[in-house]
């Protein structure tokens, strides 16, 4: 009865959880995107393949039961738990695992992480190739859209070596 197509989303490199099958319906017709810089390419890809509507959660409100899926760029503490807690299927573009005070709500059948556009396929039929799809690692740092953009603002990048102190953070996920 639904004219929407289902997609299957599998975890990306270093990711966790899933796979999830997203089947939008007349009621659940929004690909709810809660990421920095507008609609994320992963949310747009899900929308394009399913025929559902990508929706920017920072623009206005939608009810949880209208969300076919929530797409987040959460760094591991807050958003990772909120949408699963509300029973909303959740896709994190960052490779996070259950953590944070809400970790008990993050289950494999509700949550998948480390997802890039290439981890999304149609359940029935052949998936058309994604156009111009940068790898996940690059996506996250591209759309720099400050809340109050300033023409003179420069992206002052910290050397990668300094930012890259992530070794070992997965081992400590369940420590706290």
């Amino acid at each position: 009865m639904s004219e929407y197509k289902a997609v299957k989303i599998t975890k990306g490199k270093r990711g966790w959880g899933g796979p999830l099958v997203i089947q939008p319906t007349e009621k659940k017709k929004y690909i709810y995107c809660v990421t920095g810089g507008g609609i994320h390419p992963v949310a747009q890809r899900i929308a394009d393949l399913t025929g559902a509507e990508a929706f920017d959660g920072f623009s206005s409100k939608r009810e949880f039961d209208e969300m076919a899926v929530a797409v987040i760029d959460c760094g591991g503490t807050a958003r990772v738990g909120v949408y699963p807690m509300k029973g909303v299927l959740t896709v994190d573009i960052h490779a996070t695992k259950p953590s944070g005070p809400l970790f008990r709500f993050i289950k494999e059948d509700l949550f998948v992480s480390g997802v890039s556009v290439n981890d999304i396929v149609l359940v029935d039929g052949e998936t058309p190739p994604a156009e111009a799809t940068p790898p996940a690692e690059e996506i996250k740092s591209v759309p720099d859209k400050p809340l109050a953009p300033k023409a003179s603002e420069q992206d002052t990048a910290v050397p990668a070596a300094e930012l890259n102190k992530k070794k070992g953070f997965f081992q400590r996920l369940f420590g706290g």
Partner: protein
Amino acid sequence: MLKYEARVSTIGPYTQEFLDHNIIVLFGDNAPEELVEFSVIHDGKELHDEIQAGDIVQIDDEQFSILAVGEVANDNFRNLGHLVLKFNGADEVEMPGDVCVEKRPLPPIAVGTVIKVFDTKAQ
């Protein structure tokens, strides 16, 4: 130099859930309702420079040294006013969005509390 300044505008009703874990979750004032519920909402707009270990976060009059900054923390802060402050004394982040600071009792936070981030050259 001052990197960020914000005034708290709303305290979500479930913020205590995170405070109990020594975590303060900040979001800018355009955050959707479901995130406001457990967040400290503020009016900060512009991140003048990337925050990094060695910087100071000041909450009203109390200062905390930043010990570690996750790889996506600056993106989240710049794009969404979103910062996850963990008062855990860790010099290595658990999760890519974390900003770890000194392990001390959390300062009181209320509507009107001023939060600043600056590097130590400023003081």
